[in-house]
């Protein structure tokens, strides 16, 4: 509305004041994001080592050639993508189902119950890890005592077996649904009841109402949950960061990068790996944002909002 008004000085002033408020983020972006990302790109072209930083040489694309031949890096990237593909839809489905149950007026003590379901999401990764080591202990753990032994199945040897690790991953994934669950629940509760009433009068059953009203109406929240879970898998700034497992992450690629950094001390090559991961993460994110235009519903007033 004011855009057509010929008052450039006032608008300029508003812009400057606004930029002043953005200053913390702009400085932080340059110092802690853009700067380090470019520095990492520089490091990736060298043989920078943790123990001998002074003998660093420029080696061109050598690290990138090594990356192409590195089967560990390939396994890491595909492992991370695989982890994303298996856990994120599971988390979303469980969070959606739980949120749908919580919209029922029949449920009592809803505030307490939602806190109970949220609670595991704030337990540190270390604590979960300790609990799971105990549960999977071959002699004293409850997984063998309560489930495998009574069912006559062979006992699990340790948490670090294939089965133990799968259980750990599942628990970690299902115990991270807290923020997604609450965001989806808030979105469902914000849908005007009149829409449901109208659909009910038209004879739509509960399943049809869920698919054709609830899902489209909460699609922005679904999209947000997907982005949050995506960043969780690839090690970004998750809504709720539970810390690392002994400075390791569950994401295979990130574990590989961390071990290259701290165990091998090869900072140059670790930077190359981090850049590869960065490119993969950004591509998936851009693809996700592109797809959002097709399935995410934006309310009318948002679409015309020019800010």
């Amino acid at each position, binding site marked *: 509305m*004011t*855009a057509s008004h010929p008052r450039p000085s006032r608008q300029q002033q*508003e*812009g400057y004041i*606004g930029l002043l*408020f953005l200053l913390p*983020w702009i400085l*932080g972006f340059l110092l*802690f994001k853009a700067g*380090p*990302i470019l*520095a990492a790109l520089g*490091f990736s072209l060298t043989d920078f080592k943790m123990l001998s930083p002074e003998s660093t040489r420029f080696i061109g694309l050598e690290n990138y050639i090594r990356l192409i031949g590195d089967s560990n890096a390939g396994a890491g990237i595909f492992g991370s993508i695989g982890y994303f593909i298996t856990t994120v839809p599971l988390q979303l489905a469980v969070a959606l189902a739980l949120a749908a*149950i919580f919209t029922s007026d*029949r*449920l*009592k003590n809803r505030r307490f119950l*939602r806190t109970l379901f*949220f609670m595991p999401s*704030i*337990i*540190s*990764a*270390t604590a979960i890890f300790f*609990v799971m080591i*105990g*549960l999977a*202990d071959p*002699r*004293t753990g409850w997984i063998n005592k*309560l489930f495998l032994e009574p069912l006559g199945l062979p006992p699990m040897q340790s948490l670090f077996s294939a089965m133990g690790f799968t259980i750990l991953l599942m628990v970690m994934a299902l115990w991270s649904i807290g923020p997604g669950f609450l*965001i989806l629940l*808030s*979105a469902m509760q914000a849908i005007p009841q009149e829409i449901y009433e109208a659909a009910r009068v038209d004879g739509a059953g509960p399943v049809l109402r869920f698919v054709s009203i609830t899902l489209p109406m909460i699609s*922005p*929240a679904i999209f*947000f949950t997907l982005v949050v879970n995506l*960043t969780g898998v690839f*090690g*970004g*700034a998750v*809504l*709720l*960061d*539970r*810390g*690392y497992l*002994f*400075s390791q992450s569950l994401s295979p690629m990130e574990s590989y990068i*961390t071990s290259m950094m701290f165990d091998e001390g090869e900072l140059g090559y670790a930077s190359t790996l*981090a850049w590869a*991961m960065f490119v993969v*993460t*950004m591509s998936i994110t851009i693809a996700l*944002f592109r797809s959002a235009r097709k399935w*995410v519903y*934006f*309310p009318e007033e948002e*679409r015309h909002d020019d*800010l």
Partner: protein
Amino acid sequence: MTIFKRSDHSRLSLQTWEFTGTALVNLFVWLLVVVYLFPLSYMVVTSLKNREQFLDPNAPLYPAERMRMTYQGRELIVYQVPLQGGSHPLGLLKAGRVSSQFVDPENPEAGIITWEGNWRLLRAVYQFKLSTSNFSEFMSGLDPALLLKNSLAVALIGEFGVLCSSIMVAYGFSRFRIPGGKYLFLLLIATIIIPDSITLIPTYFMYVRILDWNGTWLPLVVPHFFSSAIFVFLLRQNFKSIPKELDEAAMLDGAGPVRILVSIILPQSIPTVSTVALLHFFYAWNEIRNASLYLGIAPQLRTFAFSVQTFQSFFGGTPEMLQVGALVAMSAPVLVLFLAQRLFMQDMVITGMEK
């Protein structure tokens, strides 16, 4: 008359249905809670067993110890002994492979009861017994008061920084026409997704080599003073839902931008601001990577989560001590969550990420 009767009848059956439906929904959700939180029950139960209770393979799952009795100054372990007329809990006085001698704890004066059979086949009697010795052992290895103080300091300094800066930035994005503001906001959204590993090496060298921040809290708190992209996103969305007419009215009264933020925007954003504050607290409390990178050389500055982890890897390692560590590490955030549940993430409606 008949019409009344029928409607009465159907109302009654409707009520029955309502009641059954409600009961089923509640029962189902509570069952779900039990399954969902099952691993935590292992943690709580195991942390309350001492080493002997934990290692006893015949002990029940709950914390229990063998029942004992004293007989003529000697301590006897009580076993379940099958006698004529059912089995009885009896104290083992003299063990033997073919026959053993027992004493009845209820009636020790009755004298010695001899039982024919191998005592090793008998099952001990257990009684419920909580043991808190793990906790005292755990706490004696740490300095809980110092760690609590350190963790709280790191969390609250970061909290102050992240709240002030994120509120400022969100206000800038929601209320001002900034040239290219739309693109700046897209850039901000993009930074949410940047993996930590790519910024880790350069920031590590910046903190340790250039700024000489190793062994201080600075790497753990200073970055938070430059706002958090995801918090800016949540706050901006909330600020945009507050009608602009209120700002304009205040502006006519001569209020400047900071006044408007403090006296109009913030009072209406208490739920979102507290949600963001709680999210940061949970993050700061559980944070381990930066703590282990930069506080390794400064034992006096270590945080709770980091020390619990170090303690466990050096001294603990036995499953029952690990459970104590897990319980101690999670207690503060869980307590805060339950105390603040009225404010936490209530009605956080996300209406779009790109816009």
